[in-house]
């Protein structure tokens, strides 16, 4: 039974406990950063940042929305990264059968920089990053070492508001449905509550939950959170997945 993380962004306070805890668990180096006019730092995922809280702010009809998107690998059920990498180095990217977790192994070192770029391009969510020093391709491993030991992933462990949830895929889907139904159903509750509550019942959604083991629950249209919150390509169904298998060949043939 695959394991799934549910990220309920309607509960996220962007405390970045997950971002820092992820680095601690993986023993990642701190990367040098600068203040550039945003709280989002580092600006993007790096080989030392598998988890990054993205910040996006908008003002719509006088109301400020500050949207937080704790970004990480989605652990696709049919991972395009693995399909692409399998064409070059068998076992560079593997999917754990028991948990569904998608892991970049040390064998990714055997991939060329160009092949890595191709794999990154194949990811609809633009997640993997190549460590140019070691040549390894890197990304979130859902703390597979912890999961195998019966623990929850570090990002989930560090979350205090219930934004990060972890469990069996079926349970997480159920929880996601419940929470979505609650958001949809709770507006307006009473006259006075209607005065302060903002109606997001029409805009809330789940992201690609049928295809992913990391599911996001959003209050507003996905485009408002982050460019790659949604898939760049059209949804990856089984036919698309099979189609990716021929992709490298085409690229070789030019």
């Amino acid at each position, binding site marked *: 039974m695959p394991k799934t993380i549910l990220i309920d962004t309607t*509960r*996220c*306070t*962007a*405390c*970045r*406990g997950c*971002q*820092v805890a992820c*680095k*601690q668990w993986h023993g990642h*180096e*701190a*990367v*040098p*950063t*600068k*203040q*550039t*006019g*945003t*709280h989002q*730092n*580092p600006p993007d995922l790096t080989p030392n940042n598998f988890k990054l809280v993205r910040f996006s*702010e*908008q*003002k719509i009809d006088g109301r*400020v*929305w*500050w*949207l*937080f998107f704790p970004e990480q690998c989605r652990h696709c059920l049919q991972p395009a990264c693995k399909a692409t990498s399998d064409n070059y180095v068998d076992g560079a990217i593997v999917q754990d059968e028991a948990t569904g977790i998608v892991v970049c192994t040390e064998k990714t070192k055997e991939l060329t920089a160009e092949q890595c770029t191709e794999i990154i391009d194949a990811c609809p969510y633009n997640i993997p990053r190549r460590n140019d020093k070691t040549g390894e391709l890197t990304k979130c491993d859902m703390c597979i070492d912890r999961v195998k030991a019966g623990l929850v992933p570090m990002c989930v462990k560090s979350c*205090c*508001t*219930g934004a990060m949830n972890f469990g069996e895929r079926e349970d997480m889907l159920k929880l996601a449905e419940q929470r979505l139904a*609650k958001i949809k159903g709770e507006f307006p*509750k009473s006259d*006075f*509550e209607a*005065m*302060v*509550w*903002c109606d997001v019942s029409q805009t809330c959604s789940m992201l690609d939950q049928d295809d992913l083991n990391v599911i996001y629950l959003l209050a507003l249209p996905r485009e408002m959170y982050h460019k790659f919150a949604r898939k760049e390509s059209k949804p990856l169904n089984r036919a698309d997945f099979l189609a990716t298998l021929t992709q490298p060949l085409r690229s070789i043939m030019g």
Partner: protein
Amino acid sequence: MTQHWIDIKNANAVLIMGSNAAEHHPISFKWVMKAKEAGAAVIHVDPKFSRTSARSDLHVPLRSGTDIAFLGGMVKYILEKDLIQKEYVTEYTNASFILGDDYKFEDGLFSGFDPEKKKYDQKKWAFAKDENGVSKRDKTLQDPRCVYQLLKKHYERYDLDTVSSITGVSKENLLKVYEVYSATGKPDKAGTIMYALGWTQHSVGVQNIRLGAMVQLLLGNIGIAGGGVNALRGEPNVQGSTDHALLWHIIPGYNNTPTTAWPTLDDYLKANTPVTKDPKSVNWWQNRPKYVVSLLKGWFGDNATPENGFCYDLLPKLEPGVKYSSMFMFDRMYAGKMKGGIMFGHNPAMSFPNTHKVRAALQKLDWLVMGEVHDTETCSFWRGPGVDPKKVQTEVFLLPSCQRGEKDGTTSNSGRWHQWHHKGYEPLGQSKSMGWIVVEIMKKVRALYEKEKGTFPEGILTHDWIKEYDAEEMAMRINGRFTKDVTIKDKTYKKGDHVPSFPSLQADGSTSSLNWLYCGCYPEPGKNLAKRRDHTQTPMQAKIGLFPNYTWAWPVNRRIIYNRASVDVNGKPFNPALPVIAWEDGKWIGDIPDGPAPPMAMEKGVYPFIMHTEGHAQLFGPGRVDGPFPEHYEPVETPVTKNPFSSQLSNPCVDLFSSDKDVYTKPGDPNFPIVLTTYSMTEHWCGGGDTRNTPYLLEAEPQLYVEMSHELAGEKGIKNGDPVIVESARGKVEAIAMVTVRITPFTVQGKTVHLIGMPFCFGWTTPGVGDATNRLLPSVGEPNVTIPEYKACLVNIRKADKVKELAI
């Protein structure tokens, strides 16, 4: 907190004001989100839209320093629409008390003001007494001199138009907050207020909190589940350090520091032990002699005897009327009146207002001992920017302190939970715990005094000093022991036995306790209740998440204080669905009640607010030096030149300083038209000494920034990410511009007022991150407690041509 963290989930409305709870107390939001999930309205009133606002139902931007105007408007709204919880207000607060003839309020000033001394004669605010010496009351609340009527009159001026015009909050938003929050005045509804430094760090800080408490009292929200006035404390262990009096004006357990006006113990106890003639008032502070004598026994051991006044003579004494708080201390240091000092875990060269003055003051010391985990701007002031080490005479000793995880001890959390933390690993290098350092230094000092005597050696040598520092032994001494065999109510205690709880403390020297409030936390050897991790609770307790067997809470493991106000005069909970206590079959069940006496209406019943001499919560509070009712005054530095409520522009009692480094900008100065407010953030802690040395946190928040509106940035030609210079009458600070929709200009008295916000955690010992924001701030002290006005001052801002404090 009157409550504890879990209790936030019981609220129907959560008013977060003067706090950025989600960022500074992230765990609090676990419980705010639970309340929200159960249908509570979460309202954030704050100048800036923050991560707290993002998770609130409503964010209301408010010009910094106008909380009293905002809340005064709420009081007017509640009273005019008669939304008060009547039984509560009439029976449990002093609304019905009648004022004496001397009380007056005219044009922003209360009676008894001496403009020369900037002080009130508080005796003018006394209640009228009957022939038995008991305060006169009118429970119909109709007497024109009763507190309720005077309160109504006082806030009559706080109408929507005026409040909106001075706060910069739209009338629509004011009404939304007033309506939603006032709905908790129903007996079965609860509203909680969460506040922090956004309320305290103003020249009217104490009155901000008083007015929040008054709103809660009018709505019957104190003592009940999901209610309360909740000061959010954090990692600095402010709750514990306040309880144990890491302050100048009190000694442990909230007892006044002795002054020369009270030369003997008898004088002290007479002046500090209140008396009431009302038989229904518990007047808990009548027990003060027991607590103070037990404290003296804890300090001086067998040397403290009834004959020598339990060594009270040996205590250092303040001069009455002289303030010794930090800003005054640094003022004296700057004037060359101090020779040396010891500082632990404190970085005033970053965290104090008018930091230029602090940095200059430190250079006037002969010696300075620092106990720190990291090198800080204070430890290294002698090599700071613009300082020539060769010209600094101060000899600085840096003692390596170990970090919290490297030592046993306790933290008292905001909910007054006394929580043990176990040493996780051995201290790095030669670092030692602060307790060890203090004990060892004093051992050496004592040895020198024993050998050389010197001036007043008995002041040093009479203490029952600890042989080796041990956190467990300290916890036991704090709890207290019997100093001889004693029989109390048929139970005999042997010398050395632990005192089971503070009702057993004695004024005759037969008990010791380093803090009466904590007496009971270690009731017998081997039973350190701070270590409890037991989740069991009764079904009634489970309804509100009381968890009485998890750690231990002061006082006497009471989880919600003033809980006798959660029931009616017959002991029946106002909200039966979420009962805190209830009187059933002749006894109290639920939480530990505020004393075992039966409900108020019964014979031997008592008033619920047991800590007040009168037994009633104080809507009228004659104990504060700047007035019995909170009144809106502008910050000392304000863009406003006319207070719409009176001709008194700023707090008449405010503390200001007169050194050459203390420059203040006059209200409405066109050279400094922008309001600056300062704050912290999730990623860094206080002055940043710890967190800037934690690479992952510096990665997430690497440099000093200034948050500003698009409108202001447009006016000044500043783009997001530009380096800028922020300037006040005290100095200049470099920062990176963060241009954001989360800050909006305010319309105040018809004019646009811009507000900018900056964190204060970035300092020069971490290269390229920027330097102290507090160099911009003025030395302004709130008159009751001298907390600095960090939240509002005047500055200007411009794009920087080049920068040297920031790596760009």
